């Protein structure tokens, strides 16, 4: 286990390095002048030159990169926005909860739909439930979530007015003026984003779970369990479910890591100030420190969830050893 941890940490470090270098190189390949943008339209060449020095943009790229690494290691700082000098950490602290709320809520929702539907479909293939489920799956897979999101926004949010159509509320109650917060407002603002995220994934996961459960049901050891006299529910819970969840866990881990890097489209439609929106804006402004910060966070979440999947995998299947 400790060997596994050490190797994983080493890999994470290497991955960080690679991701940040690629981000830096790509940024400087694009012809742009962040200093001029930061200085604004009514500025003189002297001011731009001054800003360029302040942002260290006059240094060669490798020195800029070294400064970034030094600040990260020495001060735990991702640097400051080129545009307004706000620490990148402040941005991340504001935006991660938004994106994480969308992602985790959506994942919980689609698992809550997909696991029961998939298992029931697998146990009663060709039944009404299975066929209904498969129609839903076909719809979910065929309908692009772009379209689903806009439709929900327009019909449920705008036409029916059942939910707010824009913005985000923190989960913790707040009394500050101009802000909102609390469990209900939080969920109320997020229900449509959750549904948008869930529809496509619920369909895919339903299919995946159905296929895996059906395959496991035909395993020899399931027949052994039935020959022992185990009841149907015991066979399902003790022998089938755990064995059929391996693949689901793998894909879930990858999905979570990727989604946490920003659910750009959903944030955009529902006006949620999350990582995806910020990344888009930062790109438009050539705001390198913000871009790198968000990239690093996305990288971290992929690494963390891959790690969790590996640990969970080893727990689910004793044939797999962490080494």
């Amino acid at each position, binding site marked *: 286990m400790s060997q596994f941890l050490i190797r994983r940490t080493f890999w994470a470090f290497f991955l960080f390095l690679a991701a940040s270098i690629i981000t830096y190189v790509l940024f400087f390949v694009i012809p742009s002048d962040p200093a001029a943008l930061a200085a604004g339209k009514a500025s003189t060449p002297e001011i731009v030159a001054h800003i360029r020095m302040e942002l260290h943009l006059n240094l060669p790229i490798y020195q800029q990169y070294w400064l970034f690494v030094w600040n990260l290691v020495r001060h735990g700082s991702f640097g400051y926005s080129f545009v307004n000098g706000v620490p990148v950490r402040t941005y991340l602290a504001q935006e991660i909860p938004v994106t994480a709320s969308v992602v985790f809520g959506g994942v919980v929702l689609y698992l809550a739909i997909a696991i029961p539907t998939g298992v029931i479909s697998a146990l009663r293939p060709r039944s009404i439930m299975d066929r209904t489920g498969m129609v839903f799956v076909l719809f979910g897979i065929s309908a692009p979530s772009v379209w689903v999101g806009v439709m929900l926004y327009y019909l449920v949010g705008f036409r029916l007015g059942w939910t707010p159509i824009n913005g985000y509320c923190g989960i913790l109650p707040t009394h500050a003026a101009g802000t909102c917060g609390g469990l209900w407002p939080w969920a109320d603002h997020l229900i449509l984003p959750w549904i948008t995220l869930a529809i496509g994934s619920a369909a895919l996961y339903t299919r995946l779970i159905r296929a895996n459960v059906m395959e496991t049901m035909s*395993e*020899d050891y399931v*027949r052994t369990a039935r*020959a022992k*006299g185990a*009841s*149907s529910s015991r066979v399902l819970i*003790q*022998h089938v479910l755990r*064995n059929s969840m391996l693949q689901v866990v793998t894909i879930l881990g990858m999905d979570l890591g990727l989604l946490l890097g920003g659910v750009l489209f959903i944030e955009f439609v529902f006006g949620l100030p999350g990582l995806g929106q910020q990344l888009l804006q930062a790109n438009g402004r050539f705001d390198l420190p913000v871009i790198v910060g968000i990239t690093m966070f996305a990288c971290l979440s992929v690494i963390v969830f891959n790690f969790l999947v590996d640990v969970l995998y080893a727990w689910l299947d004793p044939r797999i050893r962490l080494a």
Partner: protein
Amino acid sequence: MALLEVQDLNTRFKTDDGVVQAVSGVSFDLERGKTLGVVGESGSGKSVTFLTVMGLLDPRHAEMTGSVRFDNQEILGLNTSQLRPIRGERIGMIFQDPMTSLNPVKKIGWQLEEAVLIHNDVPRSEARRRAIEVLEEVEIPKADTRIDDYAHQFSGGMRQRVMIAMALINQPELLIADEPTTALDVTTQAQILRLMEKLQNEHGMAIVMITHDLGVVAELADDVIVMYGGRIVESAQVDDLFAKPEMPYTWGLLGSLPRVDVDVERLEQIPGQPPSLLRPPKGCAFNPRCAYTFDRCREELPELRPAEGKSDHEFRCHLEEADRARIWTEKQAAMAASAESAA
């Protein structure tokens, strides 16, 4: 009163290509403490017969008719909860492939304890004690520590021992063994067979030994059923079957059995393939492969009939008694002759 009485058992599978008649009119009895050998090729219906007996086929796919009486109680058509007091408690079953028949993600101790706890209201510690006991009985070394291992930490032979332990943990009256040694190497096969013999002597349970290996039957069985194309084609006491088999398929099986005392160039083989159960041949199912086929064989299914002077030796064949006796004598002579020429 026999322990297991099967009457006119039929199992059909509905497939997209049509109905597969996997088992046709199978009847037999098994007395307490006796061993029944069930012999046949792959696809002869021997496994399906006993999966039907155990209620392990999915009734949505398989249509089952006839009667299966266990200890004078009809068990065909019972559902999972009705079968619960019987499966794993009074009838144990072991399967062909010990590599896949144990749950890979549960400790074998857990799986053994589960078999106890399903049928007995005892604490887990008691179930564990019994699990260790039964592992010792099937001669697994260091049973008290190996109980916490997973299936993949055991060899094939050891896994089959675990399977046997699991089937026997509740002291069943009947053990159904579906090709228990087929997936094992030869030395391990012999060990497992010896173990089953020992356990039968100690516990006095009846055994159904499903196999395609007549050697296994010769070693363990009291009675033998030979199956072909989903039907019983010959049934007899084991000595009678080996002394004077009555139909060509059984002759073929005996001829393809290697013998250490007879050194033949090449083992006899039965030409052709087992019949399709989707479109079985007309008449006797064996007629396309039989060297003695005549017109009647292609038209009319031979009934099971008793052999001369033996009411408990039955077979299906249209050949007359005199012809069968002559052919069998010739075959024996030929086998002896080839043994001599080789020597």
